């Protein structure tokens, strides 16, 4: 009945104990309230003047207010704890998101992750806020009140006590059933109300095929089917509530009838009997509250499971079978000596300074090997291009090199930072990364550009924007650097977003290693041509590794690495690899097709009459 996982959170036990104490106090006040009203009525029906009833009536009002106030206090205690727990869980999730560079959200998508971290944690909060007082009241309000009832009149005690286990049993049984049918109905409901949304989203397609008219009728039919299905499940699902109501109400009625019999034969007094009559609904109230909130807590329970899964999950992927990566224990043993070359002290050895060294790195995702045994040397200031078909592992290799993921075997070393996990964080301070689709933060342009260097001055930010060719855009904005971009703000085109990401890299001179993952893949040819100078400028003076499939870019690089199925198959200067590259890279721009350039304004072509064109 009580979810043990909740007790694992800090402070929940203390809050529960406090709720229990308050529940006990509420039970006392409930008894006082009932007894006071019964004695006031006892006095009044005996014909006593109103003055005689004033004190008990005042006590009744006072006790009732106290019960309410204690309930509020209980809620406050539970609410404060629930917020703390929800905040803790959310920080955990968001921290996880940060540490994993967003991979934790990759499986279900950013939107679903956000909804779990925001709505899910809020549902856990509601769950905790409801469960703590409800559970406490069940044990420490209902039970003492039932004992009071039994002490005053054992027959009533027996009646109510007989109802409680039956009710609990029913609740467990029907709760399970209602849960099953609620889940079924929910899935059906989301399917059918989904059908409506589905239809609206698909309207352009329906209109294109001229099928939208008939579809309207199907929306109506589906909606009606949904109503019938829902009603059928509701008949069962609300039954548990109805049975509980029936049990509680009948218990009250039975107590009233039995009290009548026992009063007639004089085995109870009016005062005791009336107190019992008033106490029975109060005693059963926690049970009703627990039942009515039961469904409301199902969501929270489910969310808690999913949040905990994410918080505890995401273990490091082992290398898939059959890859040629180094064994996991490569970090110890005799290799250690040879790897000491990565340490800063030994880095000066050799004239061509090494920026990054990749030694037998391997990587797997979902058990499938993506990279195996990749060994590369990136000299300081070099420009290295990664080429290969899609799926060859270019993006994964880049994110390994940028320190955003860890290899499952082998290691990456930088002379400045050393090797291994701790070195990653230091390495990341020197790295900037421009992906295929750069993310735009929902923030001002200034904050977007100064992401890596929050202390950057306006002048620096402005200069970086001008260098990537966004100076004109900035000049056209009335709010300048304060213009909010991203979702909810000003929309940026794909090319503008890519250039914004480049500006991010430029604003921080300490970041002298630049990784580019096909930065122009998501923009059209024209935009790519506009972006090229900005890209080349960003590459100046930096060590660059860029994944690309364009031959034209290769002339700006001094090294080319060809990847195939996660392995390095060739490496050399662009000239030396010219023979292979044609097969891997795309032909240039519109070459390969005889393109006609048409102006939409004023172009003249053949008419139907004068026949064959082109």
């Amino acid at each position, binding site marked *: 009945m009580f979810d043990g996982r909740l007790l694992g959170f800090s402070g929940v036990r203390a809050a529960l104990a406090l709720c229990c104490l308050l529940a006990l106090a509420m039970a006392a006040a409930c008894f006082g309230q009932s007894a006071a009203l019964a004695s*006031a*009525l006892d006095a*009044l*029906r005996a014909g006593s003047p109103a003055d005689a009833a004033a004190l008990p009536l005042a006590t009744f009002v006072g006790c009732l207010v106290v*019960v309410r106030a204690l309930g509020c206090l209980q*809620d406050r205690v539970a609410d404060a704890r629930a917020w703390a727990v929800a*905040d803790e869980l959310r920080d955990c999730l*968001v*921290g996880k998101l*940060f*540490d994993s*560079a*967003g991979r934790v959200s990759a499986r279900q998508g950013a*939107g679903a992750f*956000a909804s779990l971290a925001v*709505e899910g944690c809020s549902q856990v909060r509601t769950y905790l806020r409801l469960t703590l007082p409800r559970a406490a009241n069940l044990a420490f309000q209902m039970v003492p009140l039932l004992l009071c009832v039994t002490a005053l009149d054992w027959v009533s005690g027996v009646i109510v006590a007989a109802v409680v286990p039956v009710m609990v049993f029913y609740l467990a049984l029907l709760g399970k059933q209602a849960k099953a049918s609620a889940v079924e109905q929910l899935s059906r409901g989301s399917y059918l*109300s989904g*059908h*409506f*949304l*589905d239809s*609206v989203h698909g*309207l352009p397609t329906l*209109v*294109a*095929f001229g099928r939208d008219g008939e579809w*309207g009728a199907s929306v*109506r039919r589906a909606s009606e089917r949904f109503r019938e299905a829902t009603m059928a499940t*509701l008949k069962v699902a*609300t*039954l548990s509530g109805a049975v509980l*109501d029936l049990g509680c*109400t009948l218990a009250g*009625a039975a107590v009233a009838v039995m*009290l009548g019999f026992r009063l*007639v034969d004089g085995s109870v007094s009016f005062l005791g009997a009336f107190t019992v*009559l008033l106490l029975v609904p109060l005693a059963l109230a926690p049970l009703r509250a627990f039942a009515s909130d039961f469904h409301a807590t199902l969501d929270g329970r489910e969310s808690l499971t999913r949040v905990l899964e994410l918080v505890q999950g995401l273990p490091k992927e082992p290398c898939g079978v059959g890859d040629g990566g180094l064994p996991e224990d490569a970090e110890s043993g005799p290799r250690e000596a040879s790897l000491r070359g990565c340490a800063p002290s030994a880095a000066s050895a050799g004239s061509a300074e090494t920026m990054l060294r990749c030694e037998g790195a391997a990587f797997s995702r979902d058990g499938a090997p993506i990279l195996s045994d990749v060994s590369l040397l990136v000299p300081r200031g070099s420009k290295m291009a990664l080429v290969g*078909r*899609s799926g060859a592992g270019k993006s994964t290799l880049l994110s390994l090199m940028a320190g*955003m993921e860890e290899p499952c075997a082998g290691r990456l070393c930088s002379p400045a930072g050393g090797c291994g996990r701790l070195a990653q964080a230091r390495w*990341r*301070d020197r790295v900037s990364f421009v992906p295929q689709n750069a*993310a*735009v*933060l929902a923030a001002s342009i200034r904050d977007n550009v100064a992401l890596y260097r*929050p202390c950057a001055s306006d002048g620096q930010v402005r200069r970086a924007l001008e260098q990537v060719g966004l100076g004109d855009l900035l000049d056209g904005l009335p709010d300048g650097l304060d213009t909010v971009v*991203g979702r909810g703000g000003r929309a940026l085109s794909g090319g503008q977003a890519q250039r914004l990401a480049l500006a991010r890299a430029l604003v921080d001179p300490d970041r002298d290693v630049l990784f580019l993952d096909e930065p122009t893949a998501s923009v*059209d*040819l024209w935009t790519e041509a506009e972006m090229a100078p900005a890209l080349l400028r960003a590459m100046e003076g930096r060590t660059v590794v860029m994944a690309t499939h364009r031959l034209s870019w290769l002339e700006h690089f001094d090294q080319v690495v060809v990847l195939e199925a996660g392995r390095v198959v060739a490496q050399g200067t662009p000239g030396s690899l010219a023979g292979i590259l044609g097969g891997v890279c795309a032909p240039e721009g*519109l070459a*390969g*097709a005889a393109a*006609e*350039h*048409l*102006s*939409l304004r*004023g*172009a003249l072509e053949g008419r139907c009459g004068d026949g064959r*064109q082109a």
Partner: protein
Amino acid sequence: MAGRRREGRARWSSTLRADRWVVPYLGRYGKVMLAALALGVAGSAFAMGLMFTSGYLVSASALVASIIVLHVPLACVQLFGVGKPLLGYGERLASHDWVLRMTSSLRTRLFGAYRMLCRQGTGRFDAAAREAMGFLGEDVAHIQNLYLRCVFPMVVAWGASLVALFAIGIVSVPFSLLMLVEILVTAVVVPLWSAAVNGARIERQRALRRERLELLADDASAAADWLLSGRRDDFLARQQALSGQERALERARNRFDYGRDIAQAALFALAVAAAALWGAAVFAPAGAFEASWMCAFAIGLMPLFDAIALLGPAAEEAGSHRDAILRLNRLAEPDGRCGGLRASGPSTPDPSCPLAVEFRDVTFGYGDASKRARGTAVMDGFSLAIPVGQKVAVLGRSGAGKSTLVALAAGRLHPQAGEVRLFGRPASRPGETPASELVAFVQQDAYLFNLTLRENLLVGDAEAGDEALEAALRAVGLGELLAAMPRGLDTPLLEGGIRLSGGERTRVALARAYLRKSPLVLLDEPFAALDERTQEAVTRTLLEAFADRTVVVVTHDERNLGRFDRVLVLEP
């Protein structure tokens, strides 16, 4: 405080005055609604009756020699005890049935409104409807909740109050009026006050929640950049700040609720005490047995107060549904009836014309023609001829007019000057959005419905038999997929774990166009979301499957241009 309350009330009244989506439905299905309300009021009356007769029974049986004398109250206790839960059950079913019937009509009407928007041109549909579309499912649920959790309990509580006041009025009109004041305060004034004070907080809280969601979704997609920045604390703080605001709002809300609940509890307790004293004054002088009525009246009102206590929170919640009503009302409902639109446009080609598509001096621009300067037109005196059977790729930078070109050719837009002809026939007539049988139009990320494979394919041709469907699937290279599907054509596309890859989705869209058998196939960036290898494979399939038709494809994929007969680069 008073200002805020006034503002809250004013906003609600203006919202409801302008409403076309909630109020008109109140009266629809009136019988079911009345039944539900009657059951609700009867249930509350039975609850009061149970307490009332129990009080009388207990009080009276202390004074009688035999319980037989009290057979009427005994029977009433049993009747009310059994009847109240049954009525409650009936009320729940009836009210849900009513609300579901109503939302059923609401959905149908919404679909019609969207359909009209969509027919009136792609641009308008995008602009007006996209925003509301994200909220649509939620909004319908909001309106259901508004009825079930706010409007309904309120009306039932008021009805039950009338029953109680009437019962008291039989004995004493002045006391009935006193209780009327009590009920007016607790069941009308307090809920309105709550809605005014806390409704705004709830709305603000919802907005904050949405802001948090969007911010986090954004940050999740930018998480790699954040990791490189090393600013972990700043990253966490972005959520913490908004969450802190939300918490402060909820604190304020709770403080109000606590105060209100305690004050209301005091009012109820005082009402019970007043009833006891009034009952003593009226009945006690007639003797102890008559005084049993006093006990009955003193506790009979308790269930009513329990029901009224729930109205405050219900009224607060109403505020959170207001957004939904406003959004639905913002949705422009076009004039005219949905049924009035017919598929039209040319249906048979002119066999003597060798051109599939022909633009003759076409001028076209979006927006109002009178306000538009001549220079801003997308097309001005544009001409183009595409012979039958040609495979054409259309390129151009974004904004060059590629989609406009295709929409004009499909007859979905009508030129302001000049003429667009399909197979020698006019492609469109002014003021109509025809779906010509000569054209199959595949849009950017063509939509797959959450239905079976068969139903998805039938969008292309409603009359197609299984053999035709299977042939179409084979033609677009989905023969193997069909064989792998557990329930063949009846396999749901997006449920049951069968997820289609991007390439497969595009192929299903191609299969639809294939089924349509139209001689011209227009595709607007069908490959935008595919990776390069898939783009190549799907392009090959496209050109093979439609070898005997005229194909015009808008594309960004410059790698496969060599496969087309002709490449057009649009320059604005």
